[in-house]
């Protein structure tokens, strides 16, 4: 390559120097231009910063809008659509800004070549760069340049190959084919692509024949996958200038005919070639070689535009007469139209696009014809009326220098400042415009949503509703408990477990009495005999025994307390359960009395004194033998006292009398036993007749509780307090959601505010500008 480059004499450059503006002068102007551009960078960067912020803010807004809110689908979809519009506007603005930034950050003047295939673009760039076919491939007949090459003036001689990653390969190369061919699905990996089944051109389906060319291309891309799959690394490869061709050029006609599957260029995104240009003085020159337009390749035009858009300051639209068509063709016109898209904010197309008639190797007649046609069609029959038309011989570096490069640079050095201004103000105006629209639309978008105030109201209402429900549920369940107790105390009357418990005590006492009052008959009689003979019936023994019996009977019946405790426990259990479903967390893990204690604590801590007192009072309910039943049976046991007074004698009455002999002792035992039996029996019956009493006590207590809890004047208020204090515990979902909504509303407002802030300055400037 060095040889090729050395072959191009610097004299040529100097030659140009003689004939037109001094190269130094042009260089100075370009230096100034670059400096001016850099001066704009800060502002563009600020702008980009603001818009990036706005973009991120909108992304977050979109994200939080995506979260389910329970709002109407339609409203949500509409919202999403509006937001998507805003986001794409921001994205477009940002892209614009970035394009502008690329422009202003460039230290070089970049010139792209565009035009149909085969017009000599690469040939022209060879002449400019001094490189050879090995780096800038050219060739007859079939399209050659396959990959964009940026060729820059440098002291180094090297090439950087920016390779596709598998993803970018699939997205940039394969996907467009799928799209154009209307193929369903899309390989997600290279391997999937390898095994993807593509249709063959089908002679029996005429409607598909027009797709054959694309299909053949795609299939050959697939077939040659092995030649480049390994290269899909997404990285940069630095290499020397030799042997570059296969990476940037299509296979030659011969190779294709030989059925080659060697297409490494498919893995290459871009080649950046650094090399000393023959006209080294113009150090800030970058030329971009592109595949020609009009090839059959999906996505080619889009890529073409994209490659030019950000990257070049001006485009050379190369036209060349062919033996059959020496005129400005439809394809040329399409190319011109396409370049309009790449022009961006540059206002004057003629500043951006420069026609180049390559008449190298062509007949003069053809050139003449093309020149005239071009003049008529694009310049409205005025020389340079709309576009500058340069003529050169692409293959001759000296001619290129003289007829193309120098005039072009000279022209650009005049128009570029203007173009830069246009780009700058275009981008800024657009940003201001977008900023204004977004600043208007965003608050509107969010206005439809419940605001923080409204949410606070909603929360209050929900709380009140939940409190009322809570109270109602507790009441309902309590009432069931009360009703059951009422039934127990009134209608059904008797709890058989209670009567059985009482009967069991009676049976115990009976057995006890029959067993010599717990001493064994023999022993009892023995004791009686020892003490009786002299003392007779009024003996201290008998007095003591009767006392003992009374105590024993009382004691035994007191064991009914177990039963009562169980009753009580069950009632606590029932009441705790009444609270369980509506407000389980307030009861803790405990059940029954513990749970109610827990509840009382919660109530007190929640400033619900009335409710807390109600629970406390309830828990103080006593249900025991001594309190409720002993007074009723006391009388039955009085028969065991000697305190009775004989009405006739006025002396203490002796209850039992028996002769002081063997038979007397037996009789005495029998009498005492009968007396014990009778007293125990009467006690049992008295207790059984009071069978409703425990239920009555419980009923009264629970009814009272219900009254205080539900019907008291403060009930409603305290339930509300309870609800408020424990709402997150009791209804985590409800209030969690509301809170999330509130938070989101807040966040959205913040975000919107942030976006607004970010854009405010620019909106304001837009106003100034307008």
């Amino acid at each position, binding site marked *: 390559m060095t040889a090729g480059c050395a072959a191009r004499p610097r004299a040529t450059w100097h030659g140009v120097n003689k004939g037109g503006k001094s190269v130094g002068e042009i260089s100075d102007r370009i230096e100034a231009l670059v400096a001016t551009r850099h001066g704009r960078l800060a502002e563009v960067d600020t702008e980009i910063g603001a818009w990036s912020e706005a973009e991120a803010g909108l992304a977050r807004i979109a994200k939080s809008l995506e979260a389910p809110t329970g709002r109407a689908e339609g409203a949500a979809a509409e919202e999403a659509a509006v937001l998507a519009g805003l986001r794409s506007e921001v994205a477009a603005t940002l892209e614009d800004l970035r394009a502008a930034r690329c422009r202003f950050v460039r230290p070089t003047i970049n010139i792209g070549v565009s035009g149909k295939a085969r017009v000599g673009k690469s040939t022209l760039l060879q002449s400019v760069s001094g490189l050879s076919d090995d780096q800038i491939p050219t060739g007859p007949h079939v399209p050659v340049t396959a990959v964009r090459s940026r060729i820059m003036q440098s002291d180094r001689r090297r090439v950087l190959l920016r390779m596709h990653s598998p993803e970018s390969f699939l997205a940039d190369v394969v996907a467009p084919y799928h799209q154009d061919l209307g193929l369903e699905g899309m390989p997600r990996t290279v391997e999937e692509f390898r095994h993807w089944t593509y249709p063959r051109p089908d002679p029996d389906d005429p409607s598909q024949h027009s797709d054959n060319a694309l299909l053949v291309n795609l299939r050959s891309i697939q077939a040659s996958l092995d030649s480049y799959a390994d290269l899909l690394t997404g990285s940069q490869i630095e290499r020397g200038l030799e042997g570059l061709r296969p990476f940037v050029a299509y296979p030659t006609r011969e190779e294709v005919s030989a059925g080659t599957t060697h297409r490494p260029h498919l893995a290459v995104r871009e080649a950046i070639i650094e090399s000393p240009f023959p006209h080294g003085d113009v150090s800030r020159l970058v030329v971009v070689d592109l595949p020609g337009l009009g090839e059959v390749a999906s996505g080619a035009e889009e890529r073409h535009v994209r490659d030019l858009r950000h990257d070049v300051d001006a485009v050379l639209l190369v036209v060349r007469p062919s033996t059959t068509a020496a005129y400005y063709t439809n394809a040329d016109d399409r190319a011109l139209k396409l370049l309009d898209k790449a022009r961006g904010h540059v206002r004057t197309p003629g500043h951006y696009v420069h026609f180049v008639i390559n008449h190298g190797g062509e007949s003069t007649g053809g050139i003449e014809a093309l020149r005239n046609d071009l003049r008529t069609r694009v310049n409205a029959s005025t020389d340079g009326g709309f576009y500058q038309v340069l003529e050169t011989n692409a293959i001759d570096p000296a001619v290129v220098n003289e007829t193309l490069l120098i005039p072009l640079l000279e022209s650009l050095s005049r128009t570029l400042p203007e173009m830069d201004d246009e780009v700058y103000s275009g981008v800024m105006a657009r940003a201001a415009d977008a900023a204004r629209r977004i600043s208007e639309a965003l608050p509107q978008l969010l206005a439809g949503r419940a605001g923080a105030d409204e949410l606070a109201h909603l929360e209050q209402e929900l709380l009140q509703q939940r409190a009322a429900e809570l109270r109602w549920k507790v009441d309902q369940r309590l009432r069931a408990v009360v009703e059951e107790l009422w039934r127990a105390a009134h209608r059904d009357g008797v709890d*058989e477990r209670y*009567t059985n418990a009482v009967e069991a005590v009676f049976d115990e006492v*009976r057995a006890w009495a029959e067993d010599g009052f717990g001493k064994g008959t023999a022993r009892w009689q023995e004791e009686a005999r020892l003490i009786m003979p002299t003392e007779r019936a009024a003996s201290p023994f008998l007095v003591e025994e009767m006392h003992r019996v009374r105590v024993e009977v009382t004691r035994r019946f007191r064991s009914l307390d177990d039963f009562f405790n169980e009753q009580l426990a069950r009632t606590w259990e029932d009441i705790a359960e009444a609270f369980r479903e509506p407000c389980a967390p307030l009861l803790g893990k405990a059940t029954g009395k513990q749970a109610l204690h827990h509840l009382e604590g919660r109530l007190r801590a929640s400033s619900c004194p009335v409710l807390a007192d109600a629970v406390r009072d309830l828990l103080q309910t006593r249900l025991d033998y001594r309190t409720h039943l002993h007074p009723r049976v006391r*009388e039955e046991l009085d*028969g065991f006292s000697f305190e009775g007074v004989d009405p006739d004698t006025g002396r203490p009455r002796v209850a039992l009398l028996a002769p002081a002999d063997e038979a007397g002792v037996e009789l005495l035992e*029998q009498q005492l036993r009968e007396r014990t039996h009778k007293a125990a*029996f009467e006690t049992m*019956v008295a207790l059984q*007749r009071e069978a409703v009493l425990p239920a009555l006590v419980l009923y009264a207590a629970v009814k009272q509780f219900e009254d205080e809890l539900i019907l008291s004047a403060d009930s409603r208020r305290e339930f509300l307090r309870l609800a408020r204090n424990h709402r997150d515990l009791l209804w985590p979902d409800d209030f969690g959601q509301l809170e999330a909504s509130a938070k989101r509303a807040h966040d959205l407002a913040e975000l919107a505010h942030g976006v607004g802030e970010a854009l405010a300055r620019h909106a304001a400037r837009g106003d100034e500008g307008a």
Partner: protein
Amino acid sequence: MSGGRVAFDIGLVGPSGVGKTSLISAVFLAGQDVLAGSGVTVVADDEPTAGLMAYHADALAGVVQRGQFVSESLSASKEVVDFRLRMDPGLPDGGIALHIKDYPGGWLDPKARQDSAGIKKSWEPLQDFMLRSSVLLVPVDSPSIMEAVTPRQSRAVPMLLRLHDTMQVLRLWARGRAAAPESPALVIFVPVKCETYVRPAHDHHRARRSDRSVELYEQFRTTYAGCMKAVRTEAPHAHMLYLPIDTLGCVDRVYVTWPPDPDTGVRCEPHFRIVNDGKRDIRGVDDLLIALCRILTEARRKAEQDHERTLTEQHRASQSYANRDRGLVGNFFRAADNVIAGRIGRSELIRLTEPDAPLSLLRWLRIAGLGQWAREQQTSDRIGQERLRALEALHNLQAVVDDLAKQDYSDRVRRL
């Protein structure tokens, strides 16, 4: 009615163990006391009765002597036994014959009758007898209605008392009575085993509370409301009495157990102790005799009224009476009517007073002033001394009956 003699038939309706036999025994024993000094006494009218009464008295005495008393200590009746008690004015075979058929209470259960052809066969004449009776005695088992406290116990009570079967008999009986509205009809509900409730206890401290007679009455009314209603609806003219009888009087209920029972769920098992040194102290039989005498006198008064009517309605009417089934008492009074009406001549009258006279003494009950009339005839007529004495005795019996009928019931009795 046996041997063509008229007797005062008394039906007895009660399940096994309620105390039917004891009640008869009590009437026998206490009846003698009631009539003591009146010249009239209650005797067993036949050998078997005498034997049974003696046996029953002995059995009870034995029970009492053992010191503790359990209801089941008397053996249950196994067959129908005709008790014939007679208010004996001192005439052989004379007086008011009370005819009571005792039978095993278990027969009251229709199922028992269904299961055994023997029982079924014996039951039919027994039921006829009951339905014919002017007076029905319904012993009421007091402990069952007084001691039931728990629902389970209360549920068992109607079955223990065989209330349904009792009501069936009462209803049938009442229908029979309704067909003869001019003849007397009396149901006596007799609470038995009720000593503990109707008399003050021996324990001083409880004396105040121990009189549960009102409670017994209330419980009875509640429990037997259906029975009473059945009688009242079927036979509005029938009288009903509540008349407790202590057949023992020397026992006191200590406690009651309710052991499980396959038929009734639980059954009532009272445990008694002996009090009053085991001296039998029957009460209420006097009330029963008063009731019986009242019905006799009332029947007579009714017959007299009938007679007035008969006189005006002429013979045909009285003939038509004769053709009606008016019950035994009614038939007897028809005979008496004839005497008064002079349709029976003196010789017939004498014949009527003969010991083997077909209508026996009951017909004389009705003959007011018969004795007086006889005395007036004394000198002029050649009525034998013996017969005159017989007439005197009859007159005395009549006076006793009238006297008893005039007596007040004790305050334990209630008209229902």
